[in-house]
């Protein structure tokens, strides 16, 4: 009993406030964003990036929507490395991303989703690049400058994608313990891979649970705490995107955002009133 209590004391408590943990992210960082399109985006962390006025961020994601779009809309992003950016059939093209790219304020580094995955895999495996089968005939090879190498065994050429090493992975999960062990309900998308590729991992969690709750079914923990630097309790932290098992994406809110997205003044007011003031600074 006494020994157990001491062990608990020695375990790293990685719980932080959103404000303090986002303050550790420098301008110009390369951020991997968890989730996919309208689902389980790390929105609470994104809102805090906006609140702190970050600049020059590179965003890495296979398919982004609100998170990528908003960070482009407020001028926080400079580079978007993604396979797809849009609100799917629900709202179509991402207006803030589109406007920023067309104005030259944001560089769209278009990937195929698989080349993002390949780059993250290379990073996670500690190798400088990853060969892949795909892209034959695509202008993306030239646009991205993807090289080919000769397979020394078969003498065939193969396209190689450079490692993508995020400075920080921002991932929203349903449950995590204080040490950062995290359980994602439903689809994990690229999040488990991002947690293995990034230099640092910051989690937001719908709720912090006891370690014992996770230990009952460790096979459901897709991100082990030893990979995680900080965990923030953030209920509804994926809002306005969905969080599997808990809530759907907030279509009326997103419709309101779409209505002001390309008007700088109205967007600034919307971000202030409907996002920053509506969301508690630290959950």
């Amino acid at each position: 009993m006494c020994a157990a209590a001491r062990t608990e004391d020695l375990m790293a408590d990685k719980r932080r406030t959103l404000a303090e943990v986002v303050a550790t992210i420098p301008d110009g960082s390369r951020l991997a964003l968890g989730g996919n399109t309208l689902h389980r985006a790390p929105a609470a962390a994104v809102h805090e990036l906006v609140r702190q006025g970050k600049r020059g961020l590179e965003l890495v994601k296979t398919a982004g929507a609100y998170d990528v779009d908003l960070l482009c809309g407020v001028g926080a992003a400079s580079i978007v490395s993604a396979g797809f950016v849009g609100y799917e059939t629900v709202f179509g093209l991402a207006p803030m991303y589109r406007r920023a790219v067309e104005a030259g304020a944001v560089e769209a580094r278009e990937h195929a989703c698989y080349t993002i995955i390949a780059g993250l895999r290379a990073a996670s495996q500690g190798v400088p690049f990853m060969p892949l089968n795909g892209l034959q005939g695509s202008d993306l090879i030239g646009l991205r400058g993807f090289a080919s190498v000769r397979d020394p065994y078969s003498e065939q050429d193969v396209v190689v994608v450079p490692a993508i090493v995020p400075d920080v992975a921002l991932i929203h999960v349903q449950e995590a313990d204080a040490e950062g062990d995290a359980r994602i309900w439903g689809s994990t998308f690229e999040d488990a891979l991002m947690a293995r590729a990034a230099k640092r991992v910051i989690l937001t969690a719908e709720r912090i649970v006891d370690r014992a709750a996770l230990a009952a079914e460790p096979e459901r923990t897709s991100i082990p705490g030893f990979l995680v630097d900080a965990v923030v309790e953030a209920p509804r932290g994926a809002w306005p995107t969905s969080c599997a098992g808990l809530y759907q994406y907030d279509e009326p809110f997103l419709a309101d955002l779409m209505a002001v997205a390309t008007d700088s003044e109205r967007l600034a007011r919307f971000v202030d009133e409907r996002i920053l003031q509506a969301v508690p600074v630290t959950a």
Partner: protein
Amino acid sequence: MTSSPATSPETVAAQMAVALARLLRNGETVFFGVASPLPMVAALLARRLQAPDLEILTLPGGISPAPGELPVSTVDPRLLDGAAAMVTLADIFDLSARGRLDTAFLGGVQIDRTGRINMSAIGDPRRPKVRLPGGAGSAVLMPTARRTIIWRTRHDTRTFVDALPFVTATGNVDRVVTPLAVLRRIDGLLTVQSVHPHSSLAEVRASTGFPLDVAGAGEDVPITPPPSSAELAALRALDPTGVVAAELLSR
């Protein structure tokens, strides 16, 4: 869309969905990705009709789900409902890369006569006039899946163009299903396989920015069979809220 005003988006969507569903074979693997309501409906419909053992791979990873309510977003967690197994998106690309994905459904903002697609940009891709969403998985899936079926809810000369400003993806395109027709790639070129009942060969040709031959001999173009009563009943049971028409209605 240039079909006659008497044809409702719901009618066109149902025609497209059954045309897509009929192309799927029992026992094969099929994938649809982001922003793909019509392929989602088509794949789930095919499982209720001629292809009960179709293996449907979804972006969120649910395999052959049976969602009670169809989502408009095809990344939605509801695409795990009723699935007995799940994989990751990376697993699906890996499957295609090693030659084991039978059919991929892919979109295309612009399509040329050889079935190449542009999903990236209008104008200079480094400083585009219009930045498009990006090709998502298409640049990998089109050349590696055994067969690609393209669908597009617009059929006009801005969509079917003579020259693409950017080739996002090219590869094993078999069919292109539009609001007006089913096109088939034969000897590397898109040709008209059938024209939907509400359209005509003249309309299809006038709406296409490159010359289109008719598959087979002569100018006798088949009519795409309209949805049968069994197909319509299965569609209504699957999709009572009309998600099938979401793409056509969002235009």
